Structure formats: C-alpha cells, structure tokens
C-alpha cells in the first residue's frame, strides 16, 4: 500500500503530470532563504551578509533541488524526459533540417508501407481463409499435350480422397453461373457446385444458418443453397429471416440454408449449391469437377506430390491400356494462392524490391543528414564533455535525439500511409483491384519493418559522433571545432558512400520502371489479331430447364444472331464459346486431335489444340484476317460435311509447309470447359480444314504466344454449349445499341438475362489492367526515389560546401575565381553521381534480369533503356549539385576566414 502510493506519485511526477512543481519548489526554497536572511538581519547583519549566511546555513541549494527532483520522480525517466525536452529544443533550433529529415523518413515509411499494403491486399492475399496455405487444388499434368487437366472424374476424386495420410479432407467443386430470379429481372450470378465438406474445409463459419449436410449432397437430395454476404445484402437487403426461404436459380427453386461472412470469395461464386455427386459413378472419362484438398499440417508439397505420383502410377498400371491418358499423366497439388497469384509473381517481386529500395534510399538520405548534423555538433558535444558530462550521458542524449526523430517520423509515416492508401486505392480502377477495396488496409507488419529500419538508421547514425568522440581526443575537436580544413575524412567518405549507394539504388528502380514502360508500350502496340473498336460484347447463358435439346440451344443462338444483325447500325454479329481476352490463363478449352494420314499407332502421338465454337458471322464481326481458304459459313450446317477453321500457329506447328487446307483431323478428348464435357463420350468426329485465320490474342496473358487453335461451327455440334458470348460490330458508338439489342433478345425469350455487357475496347483495356497497375505503382515509386536521391546528393554536397567554407575562402583568397570553385564542387558531385550510376548499371544488369518474365518485347539489359535512365538520373543529380556549387562561389573569403 505504502509502496504503491509512492510508486504512483513518483511515476506521475516523472512524466510531469503534476505540473509547476519546479516553480513551486523554487518558491518554497526562496521563501525559506528569505526568512533565514530576515532572521539574520534581525541579529544585526547587513543585507548581503545576511543572504550569504542564509545560503550557508541552508546548504547547497542546487544539490537540494537536484535531490528533491530525483526523489520526486524516477531519476532515469526524469533524465530521459529532460533529454527528450532538450532534444526537441535542438530539433526546433534547426527546424528546416529536422523537418526535412522527418519528411524523408515519413515519406519513405509511409509510401513504402502504403504500396506494400496494396500489393499485399491485391496481389498476395486475394484469398483470405485461415487454411489458405494448405488449401490445394489437385490437378493432372499431361506431358504430351503440355496442358494441365483441372477437371477430374468421380472415381479419381474418390481415389485422391483415400490418401488420408497427406490430406485432411478432400472435396470437389465446379464453377457455374445461374440466372437468379429475384426482383423484376433475372440476373446472372456466379455460383459454385460444392461437395458438402468443401465450405467447411475452409474453416470459415457461416454468419447465418449452416453449411451443407451430407444428406443434401446426395443425388436427388433436397435443393438447398448458401449465399455470399454480398449477394445477401444486394439482392435480399440482408434479410435475417432469409433462412428457409426459396430462391429461384435457373428456374429451379432452392431453399436458403446459410449465409457466409463478408469477403468470402470461394471459387468466385456468390451462391453455393450442393454438388450431389453420384459416388457410384464408375465413368472415368466423365471429368467435370475440380478436386480441392486441405493438406495435413506438416506435410510438404513434395511429400504430397510424391504420394500423388505413386497414385498416378497405380492408375497407369491398372487402366493404362484402355485409357491412354493415364499412361504418362501425373497428379500434383497446386496451392490456391499460387493458382491465383502465380502469374503475377514477377510483378510482385519487382514491386516489393522497389519498395525495399525506396525505404533504403530514404534511410540513406536520413543517415547523410543526421551525420552531417551531428558532425556539426562535435564541438558542442566536446564542450559538454569538458564541462563534466560523462560519455554515457552524451550517448544517452544523442540516442534520445535520434529516437525522437525516428519516433516523430514513424508517427508521420503512419499518417502518410493512412492518407496515401485510400488515395492509391481511389486512383486504381476497381476492376484492377483483385480484392474488395475495404480490405486494403495499412499492413502492420510492413509498417513495423519500415519503422524498424528507419529507427535503426536513426540510432546508428545519430550515435556516430559519439563513437567518433570516443575514438579521438575531445580536446582536439574542441580546438579545431567542426571546421577542420577538408572536413573529417571518415565522415566524408561515409557520406560519399551513402550518396553513391543511393544513386545506384535509384538507377535500379528507374531502370525497372523504364523497362516496364517500354514493354507496356510494345504490348499496347501488339497485334491482337482482331479490331476491338466499335464492338460490343455480352454473354448469354441458357438455363438447362428451358433449353434441353440441341435444336433449342442452336436455334436460340441462330435466331438471336439473326435478329441482332437485322438491327439498324449493326454491321455484323456472331457468337463464340468464350469471349476473347477475358480468361486469365492460357489453359482454355482444348481438345486432342490426330491428323488423318499420319501414323497414330501410339496414343502419345495425340496432338492438342485450343478450340472455340463459333457462329458463321464471328470472324467478320471480330475483324479477323482470313489467310487462306474460307470462313465458316451457313453452308456448314448440321447435315453438311464437318468443317474446321484453324489459326496460323496450328499451321506453323503441324503443317510447316503450309499445305493444311483440305487436310482432315480427327477430334479426341476435351479438356478445360465443364459445359463441354457432355460430348466426352461422343463418337470421334473427323473434320476438314477449310480455312486459316491469323492468330488472335485470346487471353489476358497478352504476352504469351498463341496456342494452336481450331474454330468449330456451332451448327455442327451435337451438344452445343449453353453459355455463349455475343460479339456485335456497329457503325456507331456500340453502347448506343444496347437498348435495341435487349429489345430484340426479349422478343425471342423475355426471361433470358443478358450478362457481362462490355465494349471490346473496355475488355482490352481491362486485360492491360494488372500490367498498368504494376507500371503505375512502379512509376510512383520511381518518382519518389528520384526526388529522394537528388535530395540526398544535394544535402551531402551542400553540407560539404558548408564544411569547406574555410578552405574555399583560402582558395578564393589565393586567386581561384568563381568558375574554379563551382567546377570543384560540381566535379565532386559529378564524381559521386557517375560512380553511383556506374554501379547502378552494373547492379541492374543483374537485378532486372529477375523481371524478364514481366517484360515483353524488350530485354532486361536493353542498352537504350539503361542509357536513357542513366542520362536522366545524371542530369537530375547534376541539377542537384548546381545549388551548392553556386552557393560555394558566393562565399566571401574575408568573411569565411574571419569566421574562425
């Protein structure tokens, strides 16, 4: 009790919560002395004697005060507080310098953290469930076709499920889309068929209701659905009584049993329904589901893959004869994060490296400034030591000051990060963001690291003068002051080293940015193989309930194309089984084939090409170039001989002599698109090549070369897909056509929703989105880096000119004119800049190679780009030298010499 009371009182005092105490003590003591003196006067002394005697009787006034103060609070803390106050007084004594140091650190910490947070939220963490690190897809690699098969059959799912030693749980899913009838018009929403355990496996619990029960996951089981939080809010206004209520998906009624929490992004779906897999299904070639699995804790990817490979070999042994695809395929795990961000890893690494360089450069800058400042304070420190301050006190003092700077900068940096992040998010078009904007938050870890680096730099370089003092005789530094001729050699070479390092790092970041800019330009100038202008595109997904037969499906699309074509201002229209430049990977729907007349004794001779199903008008609408033969036309009907148009890449690979026309290909197995699997067991079909078209960029991965590709006629499909994309070419602004198109389609089927309406120009712009985002962030970083390194160079030179005032004064006195002086300073700066640039070029030759995957049409060591970057940086650096050089010429020799 007693101790606590003392503790509380002292602690409060330590931080100055009990204010005015110092003045109170002064008043109290002076009153005491006054009374003593008055008493002495009464005894007959004169005033001066009385006061002196009073002081004698009282004892050491200052000691009393000191002792009193120490006892008031905790001595350490009180001293710290004193140092902090002293430190802040010093900071405010050179406000410009302090503000610059703090600003640089704050910008470094803040913008670095903001960008890293953005990278982290957008690119690293599109998936957010707790088990995401162990959440894998199991897929098969087919070496002969050089493709991955993501869809697997029911027996295969069950076989993987049996590997309980490596997998905690195994589920199956496939993505789909539904026409959700709620409100006036049906709307298409993404949905996923999931096995009962798939959602539970993510270890995310629903916020309302429950996940699926095993009995709901059996064929013929009850039709139930779970909703995403977003869909629940948007379509059902967050109705808490939604459970048990019916919703209509593709004209079928489902009962809502649960709602998932916000931001639960599972297979891109907004609604989930049970997969209802028939476990008795023995058909191994009916592959229509993805396998998802949670790997056991502690099981490595290598162990899992080894186990899967053993299973693949068993399958090859057992079924290899009847099913050739088993002979050399290998099952392997694919982490879901890897699946999502794998393609953008080079961009991530480049950006993260640029952020790291930014933080390093701002730290180097601060180091230069702190060193300059503390060298200037050598004299003051020496005086304080001469007056009796011990080295520990001095070091504590310097440490407090540096930490104070680091602390203020860290707080300012947090503010910068908090302020910049929403700005950045705002500047980025929402479709480039791969996450929910509200999930982009300041990343605490990044902030901590950045602050840590900044703090360490502050402390290290703030302490430098103290360490220097410990090395040298302080009397020496008292005598010479901070203005020895030529300055302190050590400090100078350290500063020069830092400047050189800064410029070198800036060059790397600038070079990376320039390379990115170059390759972006090339990409934009790339030949897409079609003309995206004046084009509208949208998707139609026919529900199975109303469109069951081949005739119904093909009939709808034919009529729809014809009626759109008849609209005014429409030049051409067509449908295709997959919109170009929407898919993020090259693994599109593909099909094995063999060429008639060539030896096919071995199943390994199976060739593979992507395929698209199109209506006759498709090529003309897209503006694709016909190279040989003819396009598919109305004459390629269901009863006519089967025909195919192929792209030039397919010709190049399989008919290098260019004699493809008239040749016949036999189609085999289908990979990739679930909705096209129905034909897996269909009899083999033989097609005649009637035309060759130029390659078209079909995916968002624009820089990838086109795969061999086949275009099949919609009218000749025995099982045409229900999901098709429309393309419409118009003579006017294509968005103006939308109303009339909707009207025309409503006549054919008023219940049919139209989805994903976009101009083709917009689709192309979106396809460049991630690249532009990278470029945007990189340019942002490069700009800051350029400014920071110029400031660093400027500061180092300006300081060195200040240090050499005396020397410059002597030089001028001995006859050097302004030009000599400015040349001297400029050449000093230029030497540093050029050395930095040279090191930077050497380093970026090594480092930019790491971003080669990110580049298109420009090599990582592109000499022109590097030279341009070097020139830019040198120019800016020389401009930064100019001001100190000018200032040096203005030094008045008399004043400089008298200054001593």
């Amino acid at each position: 009790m007693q101790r606590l009371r003392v503790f509380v009182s002292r602690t409060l005092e330590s931080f100055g919560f009990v204010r005015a105490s110092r003045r109170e003590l002064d008043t109290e003591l002076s009153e005491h002395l006054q009374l003593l003196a008055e008493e002495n006067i009464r005894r007959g002394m004169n005033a001066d004697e009385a006061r002196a005697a009073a002081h004698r009787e009282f004892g050491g006034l200052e000691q009393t005060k000191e002792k009193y103060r120490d006892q008031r609070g905790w001595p350490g803390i009180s001293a710290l507080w004193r140092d902090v106050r002293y430190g802040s007084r010093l900071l405010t004594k050179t406000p410009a310098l302090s503000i610059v140091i703090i600003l640089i650190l704050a910008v470094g910490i803040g913008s670095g953290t903001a960008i890293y947070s953005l990278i982290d939220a957008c690119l690293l963490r599109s998936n957010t469930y707790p088990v995401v690190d162990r959440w894998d897809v199991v897929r098969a690699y087919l070496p002969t076709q050089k493709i991955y098969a993501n869809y697997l059959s029911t027996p295969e799912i069950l076989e993987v499920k049996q590997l309980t030693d490596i997998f905690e749980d195994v589920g199956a899913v496939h993505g789909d889309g539904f026409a959700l009838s709620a409100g006036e018009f049906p709307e298409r929403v993404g949905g996923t068929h999931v096995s009962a355990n798939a959602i539970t496996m993510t270890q995310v619990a629903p916020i309302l209701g429950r996940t699926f029960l095993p009995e709901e996951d059996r064929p013929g089981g009850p039709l139930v659905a779970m909703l995403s939080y977003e869909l629940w809010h948007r379509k059902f206004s967050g109705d808490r009584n939604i459970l048990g209520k019916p919703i209509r998906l593709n004209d079928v009624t489902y009962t809502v049993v649960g709602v998932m929490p916000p931001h639960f992004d599972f297979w891109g779906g907004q609604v989930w329904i049970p997969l209802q897999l028939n476990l008795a299904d023995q058909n191994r070639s009916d592959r229509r589901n993805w396998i998802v699995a949670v790997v056991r804790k502690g099981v490595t990817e290598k162990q899992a893959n080894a186990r899967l490979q053993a299973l693949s070999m068993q399958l090859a042994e057992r079924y290899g004869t009847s099913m050739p695809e088993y002979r050399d395929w290998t099952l392997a795990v694919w982490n879901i994060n890897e699946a999502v961000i794998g393609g953008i890893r080079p961009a991530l690494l480049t950006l993260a490296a640029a952020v790291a360089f930014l933080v390093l450069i701002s730290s180097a800058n601060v180091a230069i400034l702190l060193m300059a400042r503390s060298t200037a304070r050598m004299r003051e420190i020496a005086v304080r030591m001469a007056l009796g301050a011990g080295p520990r006190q001095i070091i504590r003092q310097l440490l407090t000051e540096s930490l104070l700077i680091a602390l203020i900068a860290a707080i300012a940096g947090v503010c910068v990060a908090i302020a910049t992040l929403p700005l950045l998010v705002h500047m980025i078009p929402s479709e480039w963001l791969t996450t929910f904007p509200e999930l982009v938050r300041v990343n605490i870890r990044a902030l901590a690291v950045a602050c840590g680096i900044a703090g360490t730099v502050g402390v290290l370089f703030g302490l430098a003068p103290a360490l220097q003092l410990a090395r040298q005789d302080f009397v020496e530094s008292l005598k010479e002051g901070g203005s020895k001729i030529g300055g302190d050699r050590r400090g100078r070479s350290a500063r020069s080293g830092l400047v050189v390092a800064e410029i070198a790092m800036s060059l790397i970041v600038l070079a990376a940015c320039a390379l990115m800019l170059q390759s972006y330009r090339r990409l934009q100038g790339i030949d897409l193989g079609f003309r995206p202008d004046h084009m509208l595109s949208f998707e139609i997904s026919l529900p199975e309930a109303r469109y069951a037969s081949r005739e119904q499906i093909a009939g709808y699309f034919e009529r729809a194309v014809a009626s759109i074509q008849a609209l005014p201002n429409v030049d051409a229209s067509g449908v295709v089984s997959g919109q170009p430049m929407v898919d993020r990977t090259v693994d599109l729907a593909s099909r094995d084939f063999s060429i008639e007349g060539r030896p096919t004794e071995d199943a390994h001779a199976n060739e593979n090409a992507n395929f698209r199903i199109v209506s006759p008008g498709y090529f003309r609408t897209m503006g694709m170039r016909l190279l040989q033969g003819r396009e598919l036309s109305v004459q390629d009907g269901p009863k006519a001989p089967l025909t195919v148009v192929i792209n030039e890449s397919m010709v190049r690979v399989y008919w290098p002599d260019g004699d493809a026309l008239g040749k016949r290909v036999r189609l085999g197995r289908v990979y990739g698109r679930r909705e096209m699997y129905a034909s897996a067991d269909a009899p083999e079909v033989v097609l005649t090549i009637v035309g060759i078209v130029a390659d078209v960029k079909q995916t968002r991965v624009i820089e990838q070369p086109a795969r061999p590709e086949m275009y099949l006629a919609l009218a000749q499909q025995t099982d045409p897909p229900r999901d098709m994309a429309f393309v419409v070419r118009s003579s006017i602004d294509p968005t103006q056509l939308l109303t009339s198109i909707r009207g025309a389609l409503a006549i054919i089927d008023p219940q049919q929703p139209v989805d994903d309406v976009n101009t083709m120009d917009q689709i192309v712009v979106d396809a460049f989105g991630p690249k532009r985002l990278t470029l945007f962030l990189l340019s942002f970083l490069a700009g800051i880096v350029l400014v920071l390194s110029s400031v660093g160079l400027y500061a180092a030179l300006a300081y060195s000119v200040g240090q050499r005032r005396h020397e410059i004064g002597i030089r001028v006195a001995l006859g050097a004119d302004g030009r000599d002086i400015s040349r001297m300073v400029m050449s000093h700066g230029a030497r540093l800049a050029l050395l930095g640039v040279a090191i930077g070029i050497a380093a970026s030759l090594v480092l930019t190679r790491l971003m080669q995957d990110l580049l298109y049409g420009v090599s990582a060591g592109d000499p022109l780009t590097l030279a341009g970057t070097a020139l830019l940086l040198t120019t800016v650096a020389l401009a930064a030298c100019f001001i100190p050089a000018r200032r040096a010429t203005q030094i008045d020799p008399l004043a400089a010499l008298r200054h001593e």
Partner: protein
Amino acid sequence: MTPPSGEVLQGTLDLIVLKTLDAMGPQHGYGIAVRIQQVSEDLLKLNQGTLYPALLRLEQRGWISSKWGVSENNRKAKFYTLTRLGRRQLATETESWERMAAVIQRLIRTQGA
C-alpha cells in the same frame, strides 16, 4: 576526543519532523528547521536544505500533507500538516525509537561497567 558530531542520524530526521509537526501543528519548512534547532539547542547540526527531500518523502508516503498558505511575513509559503496516517506512524516510530534507545543505553552501560 572528537566533539559530538551532531549529524542527524539516518532515518531519525523523519521522526524528528513528524514529532515537530505533531507538537506545533501546521508549519512551513523554515518553521520546522527553526523549531528543530531551538529544541536541540543548536546541538543538532541540520543542513536545512536536507529538510525538503525529507518532507517530500513523508508526503509521498502519505504521512504529511501540504497546502499553500501565507507566512507570518505575508508571503506565499507551503505549510505541512501531520495526517492521520502520519500520527499513527509517529506513534509506532516513537515506540520503536524508545525501545531502540533503551537497548543501546543498556548496551553502553553494560560495556562501560
């Protein structure tokens, strides 16, 4: 023979101050110092400055409290008062002091005999 040092024994200053305040009621620092000197007939050599850290210590422990008031010369002065806790403390310390003094006295006499 060395003259009696007259230094205040460590720890006894607290007791002296408490006792003084008990005897005189609220008093400022100077008053306490004067009173100590009067009572001890100047035998006790007190560096008056040391009184203040002691007063602070007593206050931190809650044995005395302080309040600003007006001195006899009509100037601001801080007056210290014994608290209830202090009064109790004074009793304990007096008792232990007396016991201690008695022990020491007995010790010295026995040794002397």
